[in-house]
């Protein structure tokens, strides 16, 4: 009997999302190898919130068994998810948490993600120094959680002074411009906390300003950047938000549809519906290893990890 799973992705602005979908499809193929017929149907396009709600409606109309969604809003899906549940559909959110009690979240803890970067920076700077933060889209939940994460870490390091925080909308070029402006007005900063693709941009500005050796800044996980990291011997550390989260979520979904029960029910997070996955971290210690995983991949390919079927099974009774 076929298990039908709908994947909804509401934003196609980055390669990370593409890789996320690809890995989820690959995970479905793995199930086929094991004799479980998992069929995915994908909706992936730039849509607004109503557009993504329409994605879910389409899946309900199609009669899928489970829906995995990378949501454009944390709370906007409550009503539609409850409709999905009424229709007997399992709903899993990934990459960004949702408030709906009718869904579970399988992915990383964005707050912990932010905290990991903050922790690395604080330790690298020896607990003191001037720091700036370049954040993503203001008002976006993932961004706000990450910000909360590093802030909580810095609370324990009173000598770390956050001199400015700017938003560069997860856009590499904007991150680069923001860094440029920051370097001009705060020439004496020691550390930079910057998220995802913007890190490549920020580092570009740092290198252009000839301050590569003087500044520690968080990095990112695309092959392009990791190559640069090694070559330029950057003082960097990158928290990994692996594009494999959707694949992990898919594995969990299949097992749940097979009637298995989680050992520890998904009860974590602010909404009490999260199952958090481990967050890998890349720094000078395991940089070479990360580079090895990415060998031969295209430049935009992100370092990834996901629960294998076996690892997922281990989570269940």
């Amino acid at each position, binding site marked *: 009997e076929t298990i039908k799973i709908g994947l909804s992705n509401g934003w196609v602005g980055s390669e990370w999302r593409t890789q996320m*979908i690809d890995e989820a499809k690959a995970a479905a193929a793995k199930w086929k190898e094991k004799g479980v017929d998992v069929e995915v149907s994908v909706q*992936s396009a730039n849509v607004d919130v109503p557009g993504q709600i329409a994605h879910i409606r389409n899946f309900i109309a199609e009669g899928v068994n489970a829906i995995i969604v990378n949501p454009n809003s944390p*709370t906007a899906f409550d009503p539609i998810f409850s409709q999905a549940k009424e229709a007997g559909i399992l709903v899993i959110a990934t990459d960004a948490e949702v408030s709906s009690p009718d869904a579970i979240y399988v992915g990383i803890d964005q707050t912990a993600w932010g905290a990991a970067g903050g922790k690395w920076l604080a330790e690298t700077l020896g607990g003191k120094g001037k720091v700036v933060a370049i954040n993503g889209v203001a008002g976006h939940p993932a961004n706000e959680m990450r910000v909360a994460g590093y802030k909580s870490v810095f609370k324990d390091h009173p000598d770390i002074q956050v001199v400015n925080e700017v938003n560069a909308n997860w856009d590499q070029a904007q991150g680069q411009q923001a860094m440029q402006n920051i370097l001009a007005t705060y020439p004496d900063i020691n550390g930079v906390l910057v998220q995802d693709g913007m890190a490549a941009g920020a580092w570009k500005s740092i290198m252009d300003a000839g301050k590569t050796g003087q500044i520690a800044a968080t990095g990112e996980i695309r092959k392009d950047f990791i190559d640069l990291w090694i070559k330029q011997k950057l003082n960097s550390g990158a928290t990994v938000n692996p594009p494999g989260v959707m694949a992990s979520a898919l594995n969990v979904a299949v097992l749940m549809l097979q009637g298995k029960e989680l050992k520890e029910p998904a009860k974590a997070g602010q909404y009490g519906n999260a199952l958090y996955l481990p967050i890998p971290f890349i720094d000078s210690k395991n940089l070479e290893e990360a580079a090895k995983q990415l060998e031969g991949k295209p430049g935009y390919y992100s370092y990834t990890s996901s629960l294998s079927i076996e690892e997922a099974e281990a989570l269940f009774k």
Partner: protein
Amino acid sequence: MAETATVPSYRRAGGIGRVLERYPFLPALVIVVALLFLNGFFSPNSLSFRALTGLLSTYMALILLSIAQTYVVYAGDIDLSAGAILSLVNVAIVVLMERWGGGAGAVLLALAMGLLLGLVCGLVNGLVVAALRLQAIVATFATSIFFTGLALYILPVAGTPAPALFWRAYGGRFFGVPFVFYILAVLAILLAVLSRTRLVTQLLAVGDDPQAAYQTGLPVVATRVKGYVLCGLFSALAAFCITGDTASGDPLVGGKMTLYSVAAVVLGGSALSGGWGTVVGSLLGALTIALVNSVVFFMGTPSEWQNFVQGLAILLVLMAGVLAGRRGRS
């Protein structure tokens, strides 16, 4: 002195042209019906009463936003801040409802405040564009940044849930009929009433040729301001719908909807240059956008092609809307 005299070439409309002159939204209607048919062909389920109700309740916000946009387009203006107004009203009412306890009274009061907020935003746009005479595209882009900032100030991060009373009513049924159909009915009456007002005729006359309208003695500035106010009010109504459908506040929720609303207006056969159009067309235009998105999926388009096919389909329908609208006018 020369600008005022440019009047379009004189040509008689033929048979089809005449029908289109009367019912400019006809092409949009044909497209919507065709898309519904395609949807049903690829996925019969998607034409079920339940699915159609869902479609309406999800896209009611875009429908209202497109109607909002239509009234400024009537006068030859444009409002790139409509989506930002929607976001602002969305977060404002959600926060107010929560603060006031989420009861029926709180909900109604918050909605009233939401309408007022929409009105004020529209007024700001109107004053900036019509009274200060700034160019509409850039000025409303600037106000959209301002409104978004305000929305972020009110609700820094997406989240606060709307009271269950509110969204359950929006998604619920009364006497066995889904609530959105009541909305649709009220909307139909409202639009019919509005279309008979002097304001709409004046908006269209102003959009046709502002200088001529002024010389005729029409209150051009006041009319354009009223158009923006109407747009603000309908944007607020759109915000109510999105709040009903999403049950939460999100300061960025309307960001992408603005350009869709402009597209919907064009799809409906209205002229962006003003003076010509219908709100029914815009309603159908919004439905077209909704249906294109799902048809592309139900057709089984591979995921990496979905955005492209949608983009292409919308471009083609936009062209069709413009060409048909032109036949109606000439």
